[in-house]
């Protein structure tokens, strides 16, 4: 049952992502991308990582994409169908990178045919112990970066009285 | 502290609405309960008669001229003895705004406002009131007034026999 669900969700994810790339209308592309995030979150859930699944939805679908949409709705993009597709020359580098990723995925998939280990549920406790003990320094660095970003935003958004 | 004051103000508002929840509603359930309008309420217009039973309206067109929405039309006619009346008299209640200017303009108290406000039909043509719909068998708000008893040319009674009238002066006589 889980395997069937996984394949269905995987197909939805791939189709959603492909449509998000090829769709010319930005809002439609966002909707496709959100669909793909959703099925990705469900896949994480099937892989016994409910925390990651929820973060996927909260952060990517709920925050990042909403901000994208906010910006797109504020900007009047006019007729999107006139946007031309990139030349073959510009396709070369992305296709190379994508090919590398594809090859690595295939290699991993060939070597590990076993289904995911669903017997051991990764609890929130395990997750946070690893996150804050093992990768504590990284978390601190990232939070410092976020703090700088907040301070920078406050500086940019301050009220200017010296006009 | 400003914030405490603000919270206090909010709570006062909440308390006011809370009290109003238990107050008796002021709604009148219209088709079942009807409110009694005051006698001077301005609604459906009628044409009244004088105490003797004659029509008060003399078709002078003053109401028609006063009407701001031009909803009154009539055709003057003259009866036996020179007494004027309206051959037909029409008020279009779909245009009438019940301002009461016609009743104020009427020199003979013929056109009067009544408190009957239930003027509602499915067909707009039903709101076109003809003379027979307007004319009532009564004097309206003044039960004794008769125009011809106070003034008027010798139509219903000889000159000088009205209420406040003096007898006509003989302009050729030399007597004071």
């Amino acid at each position, binding site marked *: 049952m889980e395997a069937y669900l996984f394949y269905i969700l995987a197909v939805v994810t791939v189709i959603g992502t492909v449509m998000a790339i090829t769709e010319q209308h930005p809002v439609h592309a966002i*909707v496709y991308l959100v669909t793909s995030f959703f099925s990705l979150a469900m896949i994480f859930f099937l892989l016994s990582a409910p925390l990651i699944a929820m973060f996927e939805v909260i952060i990517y679908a709920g925050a990042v994409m*909403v901000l994208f949409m906010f910006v797109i709705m504020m900007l009047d993009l006019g007729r999107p169908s006139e946007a031309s597709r990139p030349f073959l020359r510009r396709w070369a580098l992305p296709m190379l990178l994508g090919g590398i990723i594809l090859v690595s995925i295939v290699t991993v998939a060939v070597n590990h045919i076993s289904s995911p280990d669903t017997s051991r*549920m990764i609890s929130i406790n395990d997750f946070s112990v690893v996150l804050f003990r093992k990768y504590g320094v990284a978390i601190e660095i990232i939070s410092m970066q976020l703090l700088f970003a907040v301070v920078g935003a406050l500086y940019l958004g301050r009220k200017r009285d010296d006009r | 502290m400003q914030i405490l004051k603000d919270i206090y103000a909010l709570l006062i508002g909440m308390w006011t609405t809370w009290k109003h929840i238990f107050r008796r509603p002021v709604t009148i359930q219209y088709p079942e309960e009807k409110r009694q309008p005051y006698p001077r309420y301005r609604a459906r217009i009628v044409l009244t008669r004088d105490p003797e039973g004659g029509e008060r309206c003399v078709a002078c067109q003053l109401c028609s001229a006063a009407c701001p929405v031009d909803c009154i039309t009539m055709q003057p006619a003259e009866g036996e003895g020179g007494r004027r009346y309206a051959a037909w008299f029409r008020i279009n209640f779909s245009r009438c705004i019940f301002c009461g200017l016609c009743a104020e303009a009427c020199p003979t108290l013929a056109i009067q406002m009544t408190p009957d406000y239930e003027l509602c039909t499915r067909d707009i043509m039903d709101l076109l009131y003809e003379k027979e719909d307007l004319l009532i068998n009564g004097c309206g708000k003044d039960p004794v007034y008769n125009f011809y008893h106070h003034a008027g040319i010798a139509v219903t009674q000889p000159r000088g026999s009205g209420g406040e009238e003096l007898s006509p002066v003989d302009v050729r006589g030399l007597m004071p």
Partner: protein
Amino acid sequence: MSYDPIDIALILGKIGLVFFVILTLAAYLVFAERKVLAWIQDRKGPNRVGPFGLLQPLADLVKLLTKEDFRPVGADKWLFYLAPAMAAIPAIMIFSVIPFGAPLTLFSHTIPLQVADLNVGLLLFLALSSIAVYGVALGGWASNSKYALLGSIRGLAQLISYELSMGLSLVPVVMLARSFRLSDIVAAQSGCWFIVYQPLAFLIFLISIAAECKRIPFDLPEAEGELVAGFHTEYSGMRFGLFFVGEYINIIVLGGLAATFFLGGWHGPLLPPVVWFSGKVLAFAFLFIWVRGTLPRLRYDQLMHFGWKVLTPLALVNILATGWFLVLKG
């Protein structure tokens, strides 16, 4: 993994029950709102359909179903049709993680009165409420109307801002209960409700959920004085009804969550747990209606200032204070 047919039947039964109860309650909440608002304004409210107007929701339903369902020229067809569902479905899905009664024991089967006892229940709530933004945003954008677009932009900004303070105000609850599982949070309040420890978090949460379900001091996305009807201006018939009912489902669900997080869920003396839970939910619903009858609408900059400069910093300070308290307590 094997499934017991009785368990599946029970889960389906619970889902059906929740759907039935919530949709009926939402329809009657519309009626209750009209009634209470009428009382506040010294009126009688709907009283024509059935005794005391109790059949009014049915009449509304028939009216909405038989109205023409039209689509404006230039509207984005699929998104326009999809948006009302995207607004209503996440709201009702949140209820799946709320425990609405003490576990029942029937024939040696323990039935938790909760559709899904997820160990990330609280996060599921945050995730689904962030998804509900899409209904507002896409509905307004797809309508191809300036009022709807303005309403949806306002809705987007407001929901993002207040989601932050809502999420942050729940962190102390998680710290106290040491779990994201809603049944654990309820169990941790069997002695003392969290509102006693966390009155500030409760206030922040209450204000944030009022903004989340776009209730009156924060109803800028549908401000009828300025934007006709905001993001659902162009909707008619049952699609408008879905937006409308979704809002009331949101009130019920968020009221249930507030009861679960701060008022001890189904805990309470004397009366059975389900009664306690529904009483708390209805009390929150009444509070929202009462506030709607009292307060005026905020201005847009006041809304943003209040969210970002008051509620969010307060919630952060509250988290810090709770953390210190827990560390000192050991």
